[in-house]
């Protein structure tokens, strides 16, 4: 199909060992993520989705296997992979503006350049008027916008998102999904998006990988060929949902039996 591979996950295994306990989070996981695609990862709770994302981000070392970004092995975190957390992880002492500016400060960009970039991303996520507000004064939806803007302002090659809308209420969540798509279409960033919501995955993704119950392996990869903006109540949408739900249900049951 002529798609460029941006991220290669190769034979990735992650085992957590603490005292006597040994938890296999991921076993021999293999995946490709293409340039500029919206890639969703879905799976039952505890299947290692977040672990996979943290390994790609470089925050966690793999036990075996490797992650390649542009054919180069990931060994530590870096500005080329922006991560958006479910808990927002904003710096509470920094205003909206200063949070978005963080990565640019780290890069040592001159002040005029920083201002230009921050201004653009404040606008992109619709936070005009809230530039000088501290995170504690923002709603959850706004906090996550700041976090997304902060990650994007750094101009990463890939935007990693770990259940970013998981703590939002249903309405805000739908709005944020739609806005994220708009942003994605404007920036053409590669997005790896972890979620446990099938609806969210089908609404957003070009491709969806369904992981098995722990230890996480690839169960199935689904291409979503519905045109955007997708109709959540349309028949095509339901068909994709159904096929994923069927796969997922088996895994969720497995996961529940284990616990």
């Amino acid at each position, binding site marked *: 199909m002529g798609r460029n591979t941006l991220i290669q996950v190769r034979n990735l295994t992650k085992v957590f060992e603490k005292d006597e306990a040994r938890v296999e989070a991921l076993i021999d996981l293999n995946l490709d993520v293409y340039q500029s695609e919206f890639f969703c990862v879905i799976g039952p709770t505890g299947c290692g989705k977040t672990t996979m994302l943290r390994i790609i*981000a470089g*925050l966690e070392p793999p036990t075996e296997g490797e992650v390649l970004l542009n054919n180069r092995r990931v060994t530590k975190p870096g500005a080329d*992979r922006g991560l958006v957390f479910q*808990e927002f*992880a904003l710096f509470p*002492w920094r205003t909206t503006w200063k949070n978005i500016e963080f990565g640019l400060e*780290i*890069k040592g960009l001159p002040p005029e350049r920083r201002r230009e970039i921050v201004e653009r991303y404040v606008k992109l996520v619709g936070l005009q008027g809230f530039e000088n507000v501290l995170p*504690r004064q923002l709603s959850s939806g706004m906090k996550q916008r700041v976090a997304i803007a902060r990650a994007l302002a750094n101009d990463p090659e890939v935007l*990693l998102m770990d259940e970013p809308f998981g703590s939002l209420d249903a309405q805000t969540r739908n709005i944020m999904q739609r806005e994220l798509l708009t942003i994605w279409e404007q920036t053409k960033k590669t997005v790896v998006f972890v979620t446990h919501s099938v609806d969210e995955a089908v609404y957003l993704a070009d491709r969806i990988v369904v992981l098995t119950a722990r230890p996480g392996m690839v169960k199935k990869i689904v291409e979503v060929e519905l045109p955007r903006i997708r109709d959540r109540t349309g028949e095509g949408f339901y068909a994709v949902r159904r096929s994923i739900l069927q796969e997922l249900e088996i895994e969720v049951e497995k996961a529940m039996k284990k616990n």
Partner: protein
Amino acid sequence: MKRQSRILLIQFFLSGMSLFSFFVLWWWAAVSDPRGVLPTPQDIFTTIIRIASTNERDFTGHVFSDHVASSLFRVFYGFILAAAVAIPVGLLSGWSLYAESISKPIVELLRPIPPFAWIPFAIIFFRDPFDSVFIVYLGAFFPILLSTTAGVKAVDSILLDAAKTLGARRQQLYSKVVVPASIPHIMTGIRIGLGIGWMTIVAAELVGVKGGGLGVYIHSMSDIGRFENVFAGMFIIGIIGFLMITTATFIERRLSRWAEIL
């Protein structure tokens, strides 16, 4: 809103009543003291007015404002030194387990020793004003150190992760995340350290300092049996301490406004 203002009014009333009863009880204790040693509140009040408004030197050779100025100087000196050492040490030992392994045994060994127990040592090893400054230093040092260390340890690891994915290297994690995130704890340590530093002043000045001091004043007045002056000195210490803590709390709140705890 209406309910809130009523609660405030009741609180205000209770505080006022409490203070009033305190002075009444004290007055009653003073007038019924058979030895007549305990001065009444009005004795102390008039004494404060008298010593604050006169330029006459007392028998120690100082006017009252000298005593106040000397004590303030010593406390700020000791406090600044304590903060200058305790904050960097705390920032380091909260961050690095190795640094903590080095500092902890010494700190834990010295911390339970009351500052006052160091007075003989201070007299022998330091010269005026460092002998009294050293006592204040000891009083202020440990609260600042412990708070700072606790502050660094309390930094949410997710903020460190976020900073790492934004490209921060180790030194930047420290200056841009660990230090600002610890500021509320550091400020709490500073407030407590300043309070304890000030409380040690009377004992600190037992080292026989030159240039007066509120501690010197209290000891001297006690020696000649002038108890209303002793109490006046105590009151001034209390009021200055109160003003210091209030100011420190104000600054603490301003700097920690971002933290949702306040």
